[in-house]
């Protein structure tokens, strides 16, 4: 049994009929790590979690979780991890406390410890006052918290969180993130999915960016930001506005052009070169530059750059190096 990895996925592939939801994905999650799967809607994040947690069968590939083969030793593996699904799905008819106790029963928490463990978790998640309230009557945020609490009832070594902060307000999302960090400090390995880049950057030791079922890149948030910094952007508006984007694209030292509001955003490696090229272009064409500014790229830009996703019209791709 390999002690260094909590999760190993090898050529993981999933077809739903003709749809290729996950396409030969390879990654490892180290024990003690917070690992994030970042991707837009439909990228295959949930599908991956479902396969890793044994809920659905991969079409191809191999998975080991906590050293167990998911195909043949799934029940043993399940004792060591907890899963928080995309939708909070506890039992509406049971109270907050009874939901936790039922989870404890299912996971084989010894009888004497069930109630204490449930109370601890209610306390941790600030739900002690709601312990006798039916799950159905809780607010969305409380439901999310209780669903996470239920996944922790058996003190798992690894937890899967599918979009943990979705539908939470800023305050709740923040406290949830600090809770995840706290769990991690206590040694729990965390695998989470999100489509908030900021969230992934704040929480994760490493991020895998997933797009259309494929991993585009796996790296630390710092390294990812580093990559973006290497690309500079210059926003410019002309009068009159050129109608052909192609010409701008053709400029040397500019390797990508996006429409941005009333103007253009030009990306390139060297800011002085871009600015130089813009002025030369303007004087050649007899255009006036009414606005020019250099913008430092946001994390969203990084994501856009790495995944290439944005509405087609907005983005003119030009073989990014």
């Amino acid at each position, binding site marked *: 049994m390999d002690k260094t990895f909590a999760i190993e996925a090898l050529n993981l592939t999933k077809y739903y009929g003709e749809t290729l939801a996950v396409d030969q994905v390879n990654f490892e999650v180290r024990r003690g790590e917070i690992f994030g799967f970042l991707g837009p809607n439909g990228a295959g994040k949930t599908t991956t979690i479902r396969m890793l*947690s044994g*809920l*659905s069968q991969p079409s191809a590939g191999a998975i080991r979780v906590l050293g167990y083969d998911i195909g043949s030793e799934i029940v043993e593996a399940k004792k060591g991890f907890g899963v928080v699904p995309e939708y909070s799905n506890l039992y509406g008819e*049971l109270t907050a406390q009874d939901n936790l106790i039922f989870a404890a029963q299912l996971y084989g928490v010894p009888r004497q410890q069930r109630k204490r463990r449930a109370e601890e978790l209610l306390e941790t998640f600030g739900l002690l006052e709601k312990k006798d309230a039916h799950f159905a009557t809780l607010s969305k945020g409380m439901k999310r918290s209780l669903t996470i609490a239920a996944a922790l009832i058996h003190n798992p070594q690894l937890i899967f969180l599918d979009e943990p902060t979705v539908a939470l307000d800023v305050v709740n999302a923040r406290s949830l993130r600090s809770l995840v960090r706290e769990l991690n400090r206590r040694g729990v390995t965390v695998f989470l999915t999100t489509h908030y880049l900021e969230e992934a950057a704040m929480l994760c030791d490493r991020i895998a960016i997933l797009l259309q079922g494929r991993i585009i890149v796996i790296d630390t948030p710092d390294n990812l930001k580093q990559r973006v910094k290497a690309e500079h952007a210059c926003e410019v508006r002309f009068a009159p506005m050129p109608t052909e984007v192609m010409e701008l694209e053709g400029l040397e030292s500019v390797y990508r052009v996006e429409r941005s509001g009333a103007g253009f955003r030009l990306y390139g490696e060297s800011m002085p070169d871009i600015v130089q090229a813009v002025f030369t272009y303007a004087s050649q064409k007899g255009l006036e530059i009414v606005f020019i500014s250099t913008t430092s790229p946001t994390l969203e830009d990084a994501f856009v750059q790495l995944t290439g996703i944005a509405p087609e019209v907005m983005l003119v791709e030009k073989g990014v190096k």
Partner: protein
Amino acid sequence: MWKDNLRGIYYIALKDMKTYYLKPPAVSWGIVFPVAWILAFYLRSPQDFEKLLPGLIAMTVLFSTTAAEAVVINLELRLGSLERLLLAPISLPAVLLGKALGGVIFGLIMTGLVTSSSILLFRPQVNMLYLALILLPSLLVFSSLGALLCVMVKEVFEAQTLLNFPRFLMIFLCGVVYPISAMPVGLMHLAYLLPLTYTVDGLNYALGINGNINIVVDIILLTAFIPIFIFPAAKLLAKRFA
């Protein structure tokens, strides 16, 4: 491993009992329907009601177990909470057995009430051993049949509708309202393929009326129906989450 599974089966059934037994679809199809049907038969012919008792008890088993399955399975399929059970360290067949046990207990309560009150009221000759040996596998058979059909659809009402086909088919063919011996040969053959036939026949023996098969054959065949329903149900459930 088997310990985990047994624990799972027990707690799933227990939770379903607490959570779902009083849900409207369980009450209407599992309690109100059989009771109303029984009263209707009694009011029509109180004098030979005793002869109808085995059939009516069998019908109670059929409706109560299947109605409960629709609730314990489809409410959770729809809300996605069934997934929680499949994520727990329990095998999928054990999850399904837990669900089936939920139907068995509901059926046992209903059938127990109907049977004991009829025995008190009409005082037929009862063979308690036969009664238990027929009712137990029957509850399991129809609960499993319910599970099998319920995992095919998503919504509770869809499940109840789908269940009505085998329910009414069996009520009319299996000797509940019309004796099998008086049926045309073709229908008779069909009746012998349906499990309720053996429940009705076995209950006839248990309540001092002569059946026309054999109590031991009834028990064996009923038991054999359980895996025929429960294994495909587990397969279908697994496929649903593939």
